[in-house]
């Protein structure tokens, strides 16, 4: 009976729904953030990181050091799942005890920043090694000139290839331009084409992250900022040229990848692991996935940056990754800032790099250079780009992405390039304008 009473009381509370019942907003009340006096910090610090983000040795060491420096603070560390994360964060931010540090995917960050539910970190940027922030991530955490997040880590794509097959086909140096890339495909096909299962390059039809590289390389973009809003530019000549090159790759390679699906369905690394694929575009982490299929494949594999239009200059790449932010109604902003400060230091940034990711707040990527896949990635990351930092972009990406429809329609011949890009442009405009 008691529970029902409680529920009834809750019901009354909702019906009253007095303004500000979920804690007062605004970032002013916690401005005394100078973490110079760590002994003053106390209370509980809830940290939410995503699954697969921070390697365990990193968090263990980080939490131990933080705990030693701030014995008064109790860290509550939770690993969250990507599935349903948006609802999870949305509701958690509205609870009486929101987490104090959260990880947000970089394409989702503008949506949260624009709603004013993240603490303004502009004053703390210098404390957090701001001079070395990874540009692509920094942009995604900036809204209206203010900073709402600290870059955490990023990864980007590269071409992962079979050294042995390249050698057998007589390709001595990895392709450094589009032409060399296409030539390599031809050589591979000439050598192995008799095997009906062989694919010189595995390239699914809806792999839009790869398409971005080609569009950017042509000098185009998905959308351009017009004041506070974004206007789609998918029907520009440059975007069309990027899409045309994508089709050229698909046609030249004779890839058997589905034209109506992306790189995750079926999982491309698994197919690469099957041994009949000479190249695919992926992140270094996918090499480990491929090794699950065939443990020997890692030693036969190397990587090169996605070739650019002009020789010697690799194409820009999409930076995928995460930012760390502090909810505006966090009860322990001071401790949260101290936590971010510690994490932004070189020691832990090196740990992130050792984990195979491009670190967010350090330009020192030497820890990545020992790994043949990560070093290629880190180098290309310097030419990393981000999707439009529109608060609406998260919806584009997690919903009905017009780029995917555009690619399938053009690659299957259902629409002409003009039709496909015009339709996608209109659809994207509608999404970016939103309601």
């Amino acid at each position: 009976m008691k529970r029902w009473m409680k529920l009834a009381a809750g019901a009354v509370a909702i019906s009253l729904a007095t303004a500000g019942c979920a804690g007062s907003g605004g970032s002013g009340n916690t401005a005394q953030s100078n973490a110079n006096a760590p002994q003053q910090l106390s209370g509980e610090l809830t940290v939410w990181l995503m699954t697969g983000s921070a390697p365990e040795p990193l968090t263990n060491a980080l939490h131990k050091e933080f705990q030693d420096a701030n014995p008064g603070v109790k860290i509550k560390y939770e690993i969250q799942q990507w599935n349903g994360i948006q609802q999870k964060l949305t509701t958690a931010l509205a609870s009486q005890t929101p987490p104090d540090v959260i990880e947000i995917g970089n394409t989702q960050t503008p949506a949260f920043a624009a709603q004013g539910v993240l603490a303004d970190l502009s004053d703390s940027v210098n404390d957090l090694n701001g001079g070395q922030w990874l540009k692509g991530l920094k942009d995604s955490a900036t809204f209206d000139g203010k900073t709402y997040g600290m870059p955490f880590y990023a990864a980007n794509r590269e071409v992962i290839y079979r050294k042995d097959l390249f050698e057998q086909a007589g390709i001595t140096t990895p392709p450094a331009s589009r032409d060399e890339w296409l030539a390599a495909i031809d050589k591979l096909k000439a050598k192995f084409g008799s095997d009906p299962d062989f694919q010189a390059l595995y390239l699914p039809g809806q792999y839009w992250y790869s398409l971005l590289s080609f569009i950017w390389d042509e000098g185009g973009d998905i959308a351009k900022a017009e004041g506070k809003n974004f206007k789609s530019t998918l029907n520009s000549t440059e975007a069309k040229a990027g899409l045309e090159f994508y089709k050229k790759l698909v046609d030249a390679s004779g890839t058997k990848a589905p034209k109506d699906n992306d790189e995750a369905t079926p999982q491309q690394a698994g197919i690469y692991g099957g041994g009949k694929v000479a190249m695919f575009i992926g992140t270094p982490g996918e090499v480990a996935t491929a090794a699950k299929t065939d443990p020997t494949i890692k030693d036969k594999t190397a990587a090169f940056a996605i070739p650019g239009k002009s020789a010697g200059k690799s194409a820009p790449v999409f930076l995928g990754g995460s930012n760390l932010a502090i909810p505006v109604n966090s009860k322990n902003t001071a401790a949260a800032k101290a936590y971010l400060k510690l994490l932004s230091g070189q020691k832990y940034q090196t740990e992130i790099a050792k984990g195979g990711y491009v670190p967010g707040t350090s330009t020192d990527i030497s820890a990545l250079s020992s790994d043949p896949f990560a070093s290629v990635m880190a180098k290309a990351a310097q030419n990393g780009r981000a999707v439009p930092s529109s608060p609406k972009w998260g919806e584009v990406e997690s919903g009905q992405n017009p780029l995917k429809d555009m690619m399938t329609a053009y690659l299957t011949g259902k629409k002409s390039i003009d039709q496909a890009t015009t339709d996608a442009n209109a659809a994207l405009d509608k999404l970016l304008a939103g309601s």
Partner: protein
Amino acid sequence: MRKSLPQRIALNTVGVVGALLFGFPTYWLITTSFKTPGEVLSPRYDLIPFSITFENFTSALSKPGFTTFLTNSLIVTLGAVLTALVAGVLAAFPLARMRFRGRKGFLFLVLVAQLAPIEALLIPLYLLMRDAGLLNQLPSLLLVYMALTLPFTCWMLYGFVKGIPIELEEAAMIDGCGRWQAFRRVTLPLLGPGLVATSVFSFITAWNEFLFALVLMQDQGKRTIPVWLSTFREAFLVDWGGIMAASVIYAVPALIFFLIVQRKLVSGLTAGAVKG
């Protein structure tokens, strides 16, 4: 009506073919969970797997927290099934046996409650639990699942109770039983199969629910199995083999539950079932 032998053979053949068609996706799910990642994506024709590995299962089971999540799920699911049955039986008795003002109103409520837009209720229910201080407590999830299955349970049990002839109770009352005693001693045992049939539905509904579990339970220690199932997806990678193996593991409790109650289910449904 007796069927001739050829007729029976034909019917049973249709039955087997139906079972094969119906079982195929499950078969595919199970064989996939035993395949190595390479074979999952093999271009070969592999209706029957070429080799078998248990790696997907061992790696799925070694994900941290599995037993905690399993326990939580069992608590919440069985709790919801039980409370819904109790509330359902309590409601079914007067609905089927008594005449009172508001009876039809309640039946109407039960039917209309089925229409409640459950997915859209996430935010109001979240706020309700938040303000009642029930966030992050398994009982709140239990309550939600109970509420989700209760209208259905009430309606079904009402049908079952009505299917049991009232004369049996009356006979008991003549023998000196009180109204409630008569119900408890005579009708309730006969209701067993009905309870079982209804509980299968409640069990599967509660066992599969993801969104409320995700949002209402914040601590790692309070998560349930559907949330565990989603841990196989990371920012850049999805472990499909793991998902398949995990799904098989995940479906096992529901299957066990069914096998336990199966005999009763079929005989029980004869007693009146969902008949109006």
